[in-house]
């Protein structure tokens, strides 16, 4: 714990001096948000932690199938909603159950 405090007050000083903004991260400096790779891109790993999660001991091992599920669900909702809206706009009657929406012309 002790080193965290020391480093953080050092970082506080450097900010006060107006340095280190939008500069490359200082190796092993505690992450205080001020060492930016680019505007809006200022994350650094905690000292001693990997730059990358994937492949490291902190790899979340994401399953691409799981990661795709939200978009799939959104697309399916969109499709059902589009059917409802199309019929509502055409016939003035709103039918929620897409299986009951007549698939006639118009």
């Amino acid at each position, binding site marked *: *714990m002790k080193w*965290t*405090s020391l*480093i*953080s007050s050092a*970082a*506080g000083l450097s*900010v006060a001096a107006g340095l280190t*903004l*939008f500069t490359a991260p200082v190796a092993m400096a*505690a*992450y*205080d*948000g*001020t060492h*930016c790779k*680019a*505007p*809006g*891109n*200022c*994350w650094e*790993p*905690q000292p001693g*932690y990997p*730059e*990358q*999660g*994937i492949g490291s001991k*902190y790899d*979340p*091992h*994401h*399953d*691409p199938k*799981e*990661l*795709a*599920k*939200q*978009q799939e*669900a*959104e697309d*399916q*909702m*969109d499709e*059902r*909603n*589009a059917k*409802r*809206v199309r019929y*509502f*706009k055409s016939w003035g009657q*709103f039918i*929620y159950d897409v299986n009951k929406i007549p698939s006639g012309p118009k």
Partner: protein
Amino acid sequence: MKKTPFRRRFLTSISVLATLAAAASVTPTAQANDRLIELSKSNENWVMPGRTYDADNYSPMAQINTENVKELRPAWSFSDGVLNGHEGAPLVVNGKMFINGPFPNRTYALELDNPGKIVWEHNPKQSASARAVACCDVVNRGLAYWPGDGKTPALIFKNQLDGHLVAMNAETGQTYWEIENADIKVGATETQAPYVVKDEVLTGTSGAELGVRGYVTAYDVRTGEKKWRAYATGSDKDLLLAKDFNIHNPQYGQANLGQTTWEGDEWKIGGGTNWGWYAFDPGTNLVYFGTGNPAPWNATMRPGDNKWTMTIFGRDVDTGEAKFGYQKTPHDEWDYAGVDVMMLSEQKDSTGKLRKLLTHPDRNGIIYTVDRENGDLVSAHKIDDTVNWVKHVDMKTGIPIRDPEYATYMDHKGRDICPAAMGYHNQGFDSYDPQKQIFLLGANHICMDWEPFMLPYRAGQFFVGATLSMYPGPKGNRQAAEGLGQIKAYNAITGEIKWDKMERFAVWGGTMSTAGNLVFYGTLDGFLKARDTRTGELLWKFKLPSGVVGYPITYEHKGVQYVAIYYGVGGWPGVGMVFDLEDPSAGLGAVGAFKNLQRYTKQGGGVFVFSLGGHGPYDDPKVGEYDVN
């Protein structure tokens, strides 16, 4: 008693003036949106969260004021038959009150002349599995109203916990249309109040605690047709970034960051849901809102700034395009989900320049004021001096200068971090008194210990990865587990806290203030309170049936000023009570923090309506009686 002369006096002053003012603001183009603006300015209505598009929960009424608030008494009450947290507030439009409760999200219309009879009820059947994926009790924050245009009837909109957005006929309560906006199977729910702007109804989603990638969607009020959808993470196209996004503040970041500030495809499960409040400025044509926390909470699992979670967005309401976006808490390590209220004001900045501002008390403990025309940061003060994760916000870059001592990461237990995950501010809708230029903040005073852990992502399952212990901040009483909240009067230009008071529990629901020099708010332990806006002096309170997590509103009916508020404890602070949990780390740490709440209040749910002397529809007890008598 002195009822009649008293009413007459106000009829000939406040209300008549208000009517004139409303009439004056009528523009020749009679768009439904203009009518909504008109309606919102009348004292007889409360047509949207925040009262007007300024979203300042401020009423110019002064019939109830610091002199007579001691005489405030209940005029009538209504239980909506549902326990669980009652967030938000009812709407009042054209002599009717519209009430909406937590899951199963029953909606009621009551006639103000005889609220003892229910005009209509909308009682949806929802899958009980929606309950299982709600993070923080099964709350709902309210309704939206669209005044109709002759062809399409006036509509009331609600979000259901099961992810459906429903348009109801405001006269009959019948479903007008109903679409799916969020899929509970992937963990997405809806707790937010929808928001009507210019014949569109906007809504976000909930579910960042289940890895739900956030989006805001605009639907055509008349048909339910999707107009645009903007995600919080991903490609610039998904994000609907305008070509000139952040042109005024390139240091906030501009193109591509929605993907490059994430590792791999993590932006697909990256959170940034918006389940809080909106504001709109017809001048800029921008709608303002905040995106919430990145997912999972375990920050080690998502290297990067995680843009554009935790962001104040200004989006063109017609196209959805983001004109500016300011990320308050890059790479969040504490769940400082930034969906808090956006209050619009016009004030002179410290240089004396009159500016159109947006003020946002963020969950991270900083209250931000930005120029709502371009996103310029105007001020960023600590809500309380006990905020410790950040030293200050660099006003040039907008970057919060973190104190690494309070960082959170794997294999490390962060301690005494202030604010806690619940924030120093959360879903409460606060108010701004433009006469005094002060914001009346209902605040939390809660700190925490935080220890992350790894877990896999499975769509539809909780995806948090942190164990929390929460307790009162340094000004509270940790022994007694009390002193968990504050009420504060804040000047956004000077940063001055004009006054503040400790509360036993978080002031979770927000505040409402009036030209009567009063600020009203409810407490978790069940009081509606009124304080002098100028001094903070507690002038009056009433013990409601159950704790409050919503905010008060006020309206005039037949010359009488009423104050209405939901009671019904719940929300995140109430999860222990609502789901009968005892482990202090349960409810993501809320059970421990609010373990004493159950000694003060129990569940309930409904609305209470107050007036001076309690006068109201039943002054004549014959009103509403069974006919033959």
